[in-house]
């Protein structure tokens, strides 16, 4: 494990989520689940972040915001789509204002299904994302040589 995967910082954005997954993401940070023990810190600044957690699906107004945040995160970066809405649109798939899952706008590395996704699953998804982050970093290093 490199230093990167030992202390990844995450940024969370609520696309058009119902809040169910958002409060579960926050619950991961609090004493019972405590993902800080993996060195994970929640930041509000995209330039500090390595992992992008998105809940909810893409709509007309937030698609630019998501792209903006994604572009500001430095390489290597991983995206975790949390909840069934972020994965595919979920029960709201047929709504006129829902364009679909997060992968219609930015590349997604890990999908965490569930409505609402449980904290254990979110942690599992983030840990899985760390492995991918590591791979991406190794590839970047190899490219430099």
């Amino acid at each position, binding site marked *: 494990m490199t230093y990167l995967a030992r202390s990844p910082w995450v940024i969370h954005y609520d*696309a*058009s989520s119902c*809040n*169910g997954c958002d*409060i579960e993401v926050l619950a991961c940070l*609090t004493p019972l689940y405590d993902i800080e023990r993996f060195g994970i810190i929640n930041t*509000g600044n995209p330039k500090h972040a390595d992992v992008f957690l998105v809940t909810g699906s893409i709509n007309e107004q937030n698609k630019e915001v998501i792209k903006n945040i994604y572009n500001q995160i430095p390489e290597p970066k991983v995206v975790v789509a949390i909840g069934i809405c972020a994965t595919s649109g979920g029960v709201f798939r047929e709504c006129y204002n*829902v364009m679909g899952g997060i992968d219609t706008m930015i590349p997604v590395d890990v999908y965490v299904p569930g409505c609402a996704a449980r904290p254990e699953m979110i942690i599992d998804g983030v840990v899985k994302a760390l492995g991918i982050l590591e791979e991406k970093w190794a590839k970047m290093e190899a490219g430099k040589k």
Partner: protein
Amino acid sequence: MSKQVVIPFGPQHPVLPEPLHLDLVLEDEKVVDAIPTIGYVHRGLEKLVEKREYPQYVYIAERICGICSFIHGMTYCQGIEGIMNLEIPKRADYLRTIWSEYSRMHSHLLWLGLFADAMGFESLFMNAWRLREHILDDLEATTGGRVIQGSCKVGGVRRDISSEKLDEMASGLDSMQGELHDLVNVFLRDSSVRHRLKGTGILSKDDAYLQGAVGPTIRASGHSYDTRKIGYAAYGDLSFEPVVASAGDSYARCEVRAKEMFTSIDIVKQAVKKIPDGPIDMKVTGAPDGEYFARSEQPRGEVIHYIKGNGTKFLARHRVRTPTLANITPLVTILKGCELADVPIIVLSIDPCIGCAER
């Protein structure tokens, strides 16, 4: 007069768990105007009534918001039952009441935590959320879901709670009260918290009423308006008094929510004592024809579900007026004249739930 500048606040902002955008017009550090823009989480779910049969739509109604999920589902069901003139079993009414109050406690603890975080009081945030897990454990044990319960349906509820579990829940709340008191004491007595909250964002009694504030926001400005008093579900059989404060500032709004948790514990304990035996649901046949405004008290205030049926399985219209939408006008009023550094606290003090507001 100094030069005016406009500062955009949000949609992605460290203090906001949800996207809300405000254009703040500033003169030096003073906010002179605030213009809200919403729509970042607008899904248009009200239009799904055209594609989902009315009993299926309960799932959508519950997902209007993940924090006040249970009460949305319940109010929608009450609307349908109102049109069809259904008298649901008493036990179902009591179970709905118990789950509503659990939702209120979990929402208020969540809000207290986020509010502490906005003040920069990290350890208090963690403590509030640690206590909240007790509430979520009971919700999960009785409904199977932590935040989205899925236990309400048209004509009753889907799951029963055994009498042993009900007693266990009541005694669990009792043993939690001590810790809850300690937590609330910090919010209400700590000098740094008081210093930060007293006098910020004052909403006068008249403004609160005329601008249509609801929930803790109106009760903190001296009105004792609480929709539970109309006696839907089992609230008519239970005795409680709405918590009221008069100062109208952020401290008062915090005080109302903090004290309401103890009212909720009391209501749950009364309901556990009085709950009758019997069936928990009834058979529903036919389709709603007519219109009905169902009202109930969310953690954030009064919610209205307007339902119009046309005699088919698909409703003609379902409209939700959520408490946050009603509280936006008061929010804009109290933001005028505050300092930029207080904006996060004032925005959070109305307990905005954007997922609700935009649907």
